[in-house]
């Protein structure tokens, strides 16, 4: 059987495309208006990331943490909760991984695995808090999770300063990790490491959970209509809590992979923001695990392009934020293409009508 994508899916994909296209167009316009060297700025921005192996490497490196947070947001939002604690979970994940790396002296690979497990557990606990408050006390998860992120930040910084602070460092950095804790590099001249492979495997696992297990099915159903899920005999509360814990674990794992892939010690002084980026990535990927790497690659490419442009020309890096903002606004604007959508709907309804008349 050929599976025809239904009209709604087509419209959704088109809308995403239109949003991306329009936001890029606007940014080009801004560059042309304000820059003294618009041509070289645009060139750096668009093809800069492809001009050297190191830069291509930078794109892949930047993509890796974004994949984790994108997956995390996908998992969190599929259940219909706007849980924003993935930002805190990512950060706490890195803190817990630091603890796992510095507290034990286990054989090389095992210690790495233990540290990552620490990160996942810690991340899961963070997102569990808004979830249980939602299910048991009907507290708005948006508010609780947003506030929780600050708790995570200061708790994490406290843990690092109190237990793992390296007095030889001027800043608030932890001790250096053992060499065995650093994720091996894959290519020379770049910092691409096995973390990227872990990320891609995670994509597959999340895809499997969401599409091939009854748990994933339940998460989607609860997110779409929890009334109907409950009436079908699904324990919506358990499903929500499970999905939120899982989402936090993904973010936590991302924190540890980023830490061991790119750093030798814990260095964050604030929330790194990957969690917020995850929201954009999940939206662009339409909450589908399989599109997450693509969306993450896209954002990473923009970032690196803007970075190169800002170093060579008079356009600042923050231009990327404008693109992100416009994209979110446009994708969430339901009215865009709504006429086209209605046309497709009308066509589909008429086809069904004719089918009905033949029966």
């Amino acid at each position: 059987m050929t599976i025809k994508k239904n009209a709604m899916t087509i419209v959704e994909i088109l809308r995403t495309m239109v949003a991306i296209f329009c936001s890029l167009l606007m940014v080009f316009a801004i560059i042309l208006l304000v820059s003294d060297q618009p041509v070289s700025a645009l060139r750096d921005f668009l093809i800069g990331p492809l001009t050297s192996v190191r830069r291509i490497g930078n794109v892949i490196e930047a993509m890796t943490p974004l994949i984790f947070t994108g997956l995390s947001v996908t998992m969190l939002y599929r259940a219909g909760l706007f849980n924003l604690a993935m930002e805190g979970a990512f950060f706490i994940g890195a803190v817990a991984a630091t603890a796992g790396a510095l507290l034990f002296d286990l054989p090389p690979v095992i210690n790495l695995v233990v540290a990552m497990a620490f990160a996942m557990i810690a991340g899961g606990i963070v997102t569990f808090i808004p979830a249980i408050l939602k299910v048991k006390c009907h507290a708005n998860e948006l508010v609780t999770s947003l506030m929780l992120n600050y708790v995570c930040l200061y708790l994490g910084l406290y843990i690092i300063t109190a237990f793992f602070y390296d007095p030889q460092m001027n800043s608030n950095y932890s001790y250096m990790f053992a060499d065995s804790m650093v994720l091996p590099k894959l290519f020379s001249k770049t910092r691409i490491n096995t973390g990227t492979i872990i990320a891609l495997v995670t994509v597959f696992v999340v895809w499997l959970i969401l599409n091939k297990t009854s748990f994933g099915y339940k998460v989607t159903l609860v997110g779409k209509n929890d009334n109907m899920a409950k009436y079908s005999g699904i324990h919506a509360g358990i499903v929500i809590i499970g999905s939120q814990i899982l989402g936090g674990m993904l973010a936590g794992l991302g924190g540890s992979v980023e830490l061991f892939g790119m750093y030798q010690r814990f260095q964050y002084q604030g929330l790194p923001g990957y969690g917020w980026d995850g929201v954009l990535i999940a939206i662009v990927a339409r909450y589908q695990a399989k599109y997450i790497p693509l969306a993450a690659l896209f954002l990473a490419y923009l970032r690196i392009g803007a970075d190169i442009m800002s170093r060579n020309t008079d356009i600042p890096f923050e231009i990327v934020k404008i693109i992100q903002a416009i994209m979110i606004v446009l994708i969430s604007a339901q009215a865009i293409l709504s006429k086209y959508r209605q046309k497709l709907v009308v066509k589909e309804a008429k086809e069904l009508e004719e089918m009905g008349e033949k029966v």
Partner: protein
Amino acid sequence: MGNEILRMEQITKIYPNGVMANKEVNLFVNAGEIHALMGENGAGKSTLMKILFGIEPKDSGKIYFKGKEINTQSAAETIKLGIGMVHQHFMLVESLRVYENVILGMEPKKGLFTDKESAIQLVKDMAKKYNLNVDPMAKVSDLSVGVKQKVEILKVLVRGAKLLILDEPTAVLTPQETKELFEQLILLKQNGHTIIFISHKIKEVRQICDNITVLRGGRYVGTMPVADSTEEEISRFMVGRDVVLKVNKSPAKFGDVLLDVQNVSYINQENKKVLNNVSFQLKRGQILGVAGVEGNGQNELAECIFGFYKNVQGKIIFNNQNILEKSIHDIRTLGISYIPEDRIKTGVAKDVTIWENLVSDRIDSKELKQKGLLNGKKIRDMTKKLIADFAILCKNEDQQAGMLSGGNMQKVVVAREFSANPELLIANQPTRGIDVGANEFIWKKIVEQRDAGKGILLISADLNEVMELSDSILVMCDGEPAAYFENSKDITEYELGMYMLGIKKQTEQERRGA
């Protein structure tokens, strides 16, 4: 033929979820008449009026009012033209007084403030002119339904409406209130107003209307003068066949007791006792119809049995087990299925595919899995079979459930609930607002289940459905059983109405003995 005040031509409306609510519908209304717009639930009457009123955009067609084409985009614009609508569900601010509601948005001003005196006077004058007996100072929340309706009509008149649309005005009224309403409508007509009267009650329409336009399944069937038509003719137009639906069923063979409800009481979240000491038994092979005016505890009774609530008092014995306080999941596993009252809120998830809707109760079943993972082929095979068996009209199983028409959406629910192979099926308004074909199909399936020795608890506000389909009838009134008839043929529709309205009530002995 008088002169035409309203002409709606070839109106087509498809909702964003793909439901074709109107297809090339016509409506021609003469000035100064009471024009009935008739059709069953889901025939597209309300949609047509929403389009006229500017609340819903149309996909094609033309509207002429007083000879000029109009294309209003909002209710406010339409009201200005002199068209007013009394909605089925009142649009009143409960906490305000009557006059405040009437003048809301068009307050007479004295400087910066509302001129209270003249507002009250205005309402009083209008009320007197049209013989709408309401107290301008009364609080809306204290008023009865009938009086609230008068306030609505007053609201429309004060805004200068020449054409009034009344959306099923009698649905919520008692017979006395209905009579009063009709007198007022005739007075309005004599004053030169035109009225579109939406209803599916043939008798009422024959009482006061001049012409009838009938819709069926979203399509225009025809327009005729009331004087030239008989009730049978109108009903044939509405239903699309000669008489009201009948069902072919063999005499019931009752088995042993399947469900034993004992002294069940339930106080809802608004602290109202919605079920009061309800007891009854349901046997295998029996269709027990629960009749009653809506909101008398029937829905709560079904949801109690199916485990929706906590803190229910009494006992519900199913197959010798008390199922009270069990989870919905456990109740389903024990062999009870439920067709809920509201298919859009509870019965289906509109935004997911048909196959996802069909497996929601059995997603953990081994039959759909292979090596612990969901197996796409098994799921597809099962859902395709259900779509075929239950004649669900759709493109394929990947279509969104929200794209289906009401009848087909209901068939999705019915397919899932019946194929779970339950011992007991609770059907709560199983055929509300769906087309005749689907209705007949669902009835047939219910009778099949009964003949297979299953128990059916049928809850319906549709008297014809209760009378036709049930073997036995339980009447609910005010959260209590008012009467029970072992054989549904022992009671007439008229008598049933007496029990439903609480005019008559059986004693407990009578119910037991019957």
